[in-house]
């Protein structure tokens, strides 16, 4: 009984460690996403990804804030996407 408890405890801790490590890796991956990647992932959730040359830098700032509100983008995502579009237009 005691041996079984120890084995399950070790297995549980191993699983928890793997999960935490996995989460940390995933979190770092999310934080490390580029503006281009976020643009590709988020815009197409509702409509086609817009061409960067559609708008000027100033217009992208307005459209970006609009999408931050409407599409529930985080501030970090919005900043990266706008920076990418302004650099690529």
């Amino acid at each position: 009984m005691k041996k079984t408890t120890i084995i399950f405890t070790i297995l549980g801790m191993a699983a928890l460690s793997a999960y935490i490590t996995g989460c940390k890796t995933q979190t770092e991956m999310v934080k490390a996403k580029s503006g281009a990647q976020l643009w590709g992932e988020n815009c197409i959730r509702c409509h086609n990804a817009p061409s960067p040359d559609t708008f000027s830098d100033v217009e992208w700032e307005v459209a970006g804030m609009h999408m931050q509100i409407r599409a529930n983008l985080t501030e970090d995502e919005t900043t990266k996407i706008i920076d990418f579009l302004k650099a690529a237009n």
Partner: protein
Amino acid sequence: MMKRTTILSALSIILAVSTVFAQDSLSTYDRQIANLDQQVTDLDRKFGKQFSLFKPGKSKFMLRGFFFTGFDMVSSEGETDYNFIGGGINPVLLYKQSERLFFEAEFEGEYVNNEFNLGLGYANATFVVNKYITVRGGKFLIPFGSFTEKLHPAWINKMSSTPLGFGHDGIAPGADLGLEVRGAFHIGAVKLNYQAYVINGPQLKTGVDEPEEAGMLKFGSYTDNNPDKAVGGRIGIFPMSNSSLELGFSGMTAGVGDKGSAYSKVRANLFAVDLSYVKSLNFMKSVLDIKAQYNYSQVGDANYAVPDDTTDLFYDFNNVSSGYYVQMALRPSLVDNNFFKRLEIAGRFSALQTPEGSLWEQAPTQWAVNLNYWFNWRTVLKLGYQTTGGLGDHDSGTSITQNMFTVRLAMGF
């Protein structure tokens, strides 16, 4: 001696003349330099002024929106109608006053029945409190599911029509007046977003004006009929780190009866579940887009007057409605061929069930398929076919079969 004096005199004269000429030359150069200075100043003023015309200020304004037009061929009950449908134009004004203040407004203009109708889709001001909390007030699209708030514009909607249960006489709210808090954040790799709001809310139609609509909910009223405001919200979850899948859960509860009337205690509870899955399928060189939403509406018990009856007879029914749609689209946007990468095929099934025993009982189902051609990311030509069957509209209450061919041109700007 005389000769030396002569030479010295001549040298003095030459020196004096040279000095005079030199002074003249210096004056000329000074004037030229002064002129050049002036020209540079003038040019700086001129082009500096022109440049300042393009230099962005803190206030940033933008006009966006969309336009659509098309052609419908509708066959129903042995009759076929052919119509060009009026051009609809929805200008959207966006105004970013600062990093924290934002304003948006949409006007809805459409030419119908020889009249141009102009309405206010939404108009609201937003204040960004911090990176997790945004507050907005005014008239806004209600985050009940995802279709109404995010997918309804003609250049975004992949189909030619809205699913059953949305729009006029629908069971899901559109836009309303009130106050909303929203935001988004990550917990690990999972992204969450939330919206919570207080609005005027839906109102109960009692049948006084339109007996055949007794028990229906009327959405988007400008003035409330009671002090019991509608409260609701939505939570969206992105369980995958690439944001390809979103699951949304929405709810709303509201007092809907007129204050002081026999219906003042009647409440409505609405729920919705929505799904969005968008993923590039490299092995098919295509983008797969799946959308779905289920709506449920429950209105409290109430008695309604039997129309055209003089004996004060009343009737009631279990006022529960539900509807859903499932839509799938596939676009081979990753292929090399410039024509095929612009094509998209989309299909949708939707169903609606309104209360049995009501005068607006209906249970239609609808299939729709579309072949779309994208001229660019925001302009599309949509060729569609849809067939609607089942228990028909609430005016007739009989079974219907309606087939419709549609052509739509939608342009976002």
